[in-house]
């Protein structure tokens, strides 16, 4: 910054005007269509507002108090936590195993990785439709194959059975995101110095030992990022629900994210929905911060 300072030592109004030209449009759009609605949304958490009428009665913290008594919300929280646990296991650990295996492959690595990454470039609607086909009770591929193999009794209504639909949603999310998280791990794996592998080889370490003593400790940065991202993915689960079960059967697959949308947009209780999303927003941020802190502290110095 030294040269420009020397060239233009004094304050010039024209300079500020140029700065406004540079960031003005972005700031205006951002303020008008992100900040303003967000602030409005949060402000309405203190009101009883349908979202469409102009009058919104001030109710203080009543919306927040109601959150505590909301049975449907409790159910949504349970379901969301269940999904999040599965998703974190798949994306933080499953993806790690896959990445380590892919890293060991010498041939066709681009092809292999490309295969696993591919679902990630598809639209949520596409993967949802494909999975709805696989899971369909009468005509779906899974059941057709099971019946063809003589396992008629194994055929299930994967999407309609309240006991199974959670795993259906999980399979859909996992299929979409696995390649993405694997890629993040692979980038990290390739940053491990070869010397470590060579040292391990000299010590006669097998693949399992290499994984435990070299790769796993060195993968901590990616593990941190991936588990935080996976947790956020799980806790904010929304679009996958919207394009498949829409909370059903009954309210079985209502996630917190979808419940916010359902209350605010479909049930016309925007004030209540705003209070809920404010709480969720803070909670997710806290979980992420705690997670980063915990995982970072355990970083190993080799």
């Amino acid at each position: 910054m030294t040269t420009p300072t020397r060239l233009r030592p004094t304050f010039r109004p024209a300079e500020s005007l140029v700065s406004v030209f540079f960031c003005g449009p972005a700031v205006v759009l951002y303020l008008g269509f992100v900040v303003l609605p967000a602030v409005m949304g949060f402000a309405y958490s203190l009101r009883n507002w349908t979202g469409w009428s102009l009058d919104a009665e001030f109710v203080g913290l009543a919306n927040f108090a109601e959150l505590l008594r909301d049975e449907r919300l409790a159910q949504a929280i349970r379901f969301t936590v269940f999904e999040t646990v599965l998703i974190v296991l798949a994306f933080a650990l499953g993806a790690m195993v896959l990445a380590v295996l892919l890293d060991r492959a010498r041939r066709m690595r681009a092809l292999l990785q490309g295969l696993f990454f591919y679902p990630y470039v598809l639209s949520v609607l596409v993967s949802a439709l494909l999975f709805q086909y696989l899971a369909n009770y009468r005509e779906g591929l899974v059941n057709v194959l099971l019946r063809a193999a003589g396992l008629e009794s194994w055929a299930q209504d994967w999407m309609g059975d309240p006991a199974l639909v959670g795993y259906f949603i999980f399979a859909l999310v996992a299929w979409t995101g696995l390649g993405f998280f694997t890629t993040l791990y692979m980038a990290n794996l390739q940053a491990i110095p070869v010397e470590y592998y060579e040292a391990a080889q000299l010590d006669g370490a097998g693949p399992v030992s290499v994984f435990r003593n070299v790769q796993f400790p060195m993968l901590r940065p990616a593990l941190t990022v991936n588990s935080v991202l996976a947790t956020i993915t799980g806790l904010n689960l929304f679009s996958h629900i919207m394009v498949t079960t829409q909370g059903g059967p009954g309210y079985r697959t209502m996630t917190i994210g979808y419940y916010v949308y359902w209350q605010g947009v479909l049930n016309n209780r925007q004030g209540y929905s705003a209070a809920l999303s404010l709480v969720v927003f803070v909670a997710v941020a806290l979980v992420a911060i705690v997670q980063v802190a915990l995982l970072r502290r355990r970083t190993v110095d080799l």
Partner: protein
Amino acid sequence: MRGLGANRGQRSAPAGRTDDTEGTPSPRVRGAKSGAPPAPLSLGRGAGGGGAGGSVATLVSGRKRRARTSGGKRRWATLPLEVALLVLGAIFVAPCVLALLNTFKTLHEIIESPLAPPKYLNLDNLEYLFASVKLLAPMRNSVLMCVAVIGSLITLAPMAAYSIVRRRMATGRFLELAFLAGLTVPFQIIIVPLLQEFRLLGIQFTYFSLWLHYVSWGLPLCIFIYSRFLSTIPKELEEAAAIDGCGPIATFWRIVFPLLKPCTATVIIFWGLWIWNDFVQAYVFMGSMRGQLAFVQLWRFLSDQYVKNWNYIFAGVVVLSAPVTILYLVMQRSFVKGLTAGAYR
């Protein structure tokens, strides 16, 4: 992935090595990319590589040596693993292949023998999609929307990032934080207030309102990506231009903007894919009645059907995924890079 594999050695190279296909100006950005917590990585590398220039050669040749000395027997040692992974990967993408096959079959054939290849190239489903569902116009609209949004993002975001990073504004730091905060706003909370706002402006359920939403929603991440990139490129060029009498705006467009090309490529891929594939936001802001973007149209058509016409579902899925798939096959590396760029925010 080939790209990252080739980078193994270069990754630990001391500054100055640029990999042109890689795009980002080498190690610093990569370091920043591979971690919210970059410390453990660089620490490990420093300790292992012994630092300094010599380590590059050792690393690269070490890698090669490992591969070369492993000899004939070793070279085949990983073959079972590779085959197993290939089978696994094939199963993984099998639903997509199945969709492609079933696009050319009748509903009856799909239900009776889902795995059989089509008997002949039956184009009825595709014809129905284009003739009766009229999928072509929505696809064109989606492309136009992509162009409009990306065009706005790749002009507004670098300009804002430039003013934040380079121009000595009193509000620069504040603006940076304000935009960063935008990354944490949950989508659900802005839906209804934003719809309300659009209604007051008289633009509810229009392409313009959706464009406004896409651009303003995309700006924070784009500005973040551009600022991070900008702070890694030296400012001597700009200073030279300033000395030669180039005004600030001309300096930006002629000197800085071309330097940001790799970043712009990332933004184009990321948002192009996002907007083309988007269903949820388009559905919310354009409504199901007026929504004429590709995936909204498909959704509308499918939800009007009382039975599951898998043949149309598969055909629709294939048609709308085809552009993305073709681009992905052609430039897998750029896709992977562009899509993972937003991960470490």
